[in-house]
């Protein structure tokens, strides 16, 4: 912040210094993710941060930027994973076809849930999204011949990733991490484009004042439905990544506890910021990893930490840090 116009670095992209650097949020985020496996205690943890980071980032479009507190994001995370697994295992599709198809089908599911839930407002919306996501959970539980029911989806493996004549051994953890990171980078680029577009301004206007946005002539209902679908699409890509990574899809992924975990992650990291979701996912997963070493009851600590965050640090770690640095409005 040494440039003479440091006070306006927020409003206008400054030509140098911290302001310019933070404008490049996608590149910066990818750079951090690229070295993540060497910062965290294990590579398995880094892969999980990547996957949950994408899921939570998609959710943040809905919660942080539009102000819609959904409790049903697990439905799209799970749908992405299940559709990918079924496309590969049951229909023998290669991964690069399975993933787009899974995202497309998950987006359709998001449209169906969105049509019902975006008719409601406020707290109602939270309850309805939770209930409808539980409906998806029970459908997956009952349709056992397709989804494996309680045992989860099994019987598909991805050992090589082939694209453009390149063949990568996907079982090698380092290769796996960077292939998945490429998918995460794609999602980040997509999300950044949405936020920078006029539509990004519309959803933030809805968050700040729904009545005013409507009075300005924006179609609030349609915008909410579209952002619900975009959010579902991005989170479902995280599900695809999970399916490719684990080669199984546990039924638990669809449970509302997973939705709650996504909400916790976004709040721990900081809603309304671009990189906050990754910080939140990393914080949650590292906490789980560290605490579960000395007690199986790690959830009681995670719950307590979350309560303390709601009470005293509602902007989360990243959001508070950005505010302290005075760059909060740039929301990188």
């Amino acid at each position, binding site marked *: 912040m040494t440039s003479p116009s440091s006070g306006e670095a927020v409003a206008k992209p400054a030509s140098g210094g911290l302001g310019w650097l933070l404008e490049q949020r996608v590149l910066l985020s990818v750079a951090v993710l690229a070295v993540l496996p060497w910062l965290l205690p294990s590579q398995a943890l880094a892969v999980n941060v990547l996957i949950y980071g994408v899921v939570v980032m998609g959710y943040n479009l809905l919660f942080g930027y539009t102000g819609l*507190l959904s409790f049903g994001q697990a439905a799209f995370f799970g749908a992405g994973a299940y559709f990918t697994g079924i496309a590969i295992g049951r229909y023998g599709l290669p991964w690069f076809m399975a993933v787009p198809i899974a995202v497309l089908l998950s987006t359709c599911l998001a449209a169906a849930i969105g049509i*019902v*839930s975006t*008719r*409601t*407002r*406020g*707290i*109602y919306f*939270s*309850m*309805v999204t*939770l*209930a*409808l996501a*539980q*409906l998806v959970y*029970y*459908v997956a*539980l*009952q349709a056992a011949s397709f989804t494996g029911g309680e045992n989860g989806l099994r019987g598909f493996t991805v050992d090589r990733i082939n694209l453009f004549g390149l063949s990568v051994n996907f079982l090698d953890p380092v290769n796996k991490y960077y292939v998945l990171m490429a998918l995460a980078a794609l999602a980040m680029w997509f999300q950044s484009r949405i936020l920078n577009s006029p539509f990004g301004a519309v959803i933030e206007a809805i968050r700040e004042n729904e009545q005013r946005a409507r009075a300005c002539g924006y179609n609030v209902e349609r915008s909410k439905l579209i952002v619900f679908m975009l959010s579902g699409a991005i989170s479902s890509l995280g599900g695809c990544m999970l399916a490719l990574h684990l080669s199984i899809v546990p039924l638990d992924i669809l*449970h*509302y*506890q997973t939705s*709650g975990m996504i*909400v*916790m992650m976004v*709040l721990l990291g900081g809603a309304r910021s671009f990189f906050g979701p990754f910080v939140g996912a990393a914080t949650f997963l590292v906490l789980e990893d560290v605490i579960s070493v000395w007690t199986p*009851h790690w*959830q*009681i600590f*995670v*719950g*307590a930490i*979350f*309560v303390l965050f*709601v*009470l005293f640090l*509602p902007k989360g770690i990243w959001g508070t840090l950005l505010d302290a640095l005075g760059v909060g409005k740039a929301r990188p």
Partner: protein
Amino acid sequence: MDLSLIIMQLLSGIALGAVLVITALGLTIVFGMLGVVNFAHGALFMIGAYAGLYLASLTGSFWWGLLLAPILMGAFGMLIEFVLIRRLYGRSIDDPLLLTFGLSYILVEGVRIVFGSDGIPFPTPPQLIGVLDLGIGFFPRYRLFVIALVAVVLLLLWLALEKTRIGLIVRAGARDPMIMQVLGVDIGRVWLAIFGLGVGLAALGGVLAGPMRSVNPEMGSLVLAEAFVVTVIGGLGSIVGAVVAGLMVGISISLVALFAPEMATIVMFALMAVVLLIRPQGLFGVRGRTT
């Protein structure tokens, strides 16, 4: 399929619905008064069941458990309101929701530490074991008792709200807390009592459900989704809505189980989706009361 079987199933549905009504009522009263959606409601239902079980085994009588568990849990609810929820009034409407969600993690894990993760059987009280001949078929005594008790509790609650001075304050406070404060009513104490009542009702639901479901730390998560469905169908904050929707959901689950068992858990969600498409504010909800 003969008629008596359908009537028996209908009665089962009413018994199931009665527990849902009591549980959803706690949720809806707290929302109506405090504007707080208690995401820990399911966890408190579960702890209510454990408390009932523990007190019953301690005193050797189910009836002490049934009486004391809701009272003690009500006091615990007041403690939660006083220590945690109270700090959040005036902040974003999402904050109490998020806080109670975090609280449910603590409560569920706390129960796992004390009682373990496995389910515990909740014995039916000896006086209520067996079936009663209703002329057209046999029906479990315990379920009849649940229906009767819930009816009595509903009646008492209605009398308290409509016929007493405290009820008047509560109803007026739900409409306009500011005016109540101007009139010299300590609205903070009313909110404390209402939150306690809500948690007490959750605990009562838990104790009543004990002998019908198995008691385990996860039982609350299913109940929370069910209570949400009931309050959304009935209209958030509406007491009549909670009663009608609770019975409606219980009966539909029961009747669908008769014809298509695998659809039983799904039917209530479908019911909710249909109601929302027709009336987004719920059957007895008031438009504009949804935020």
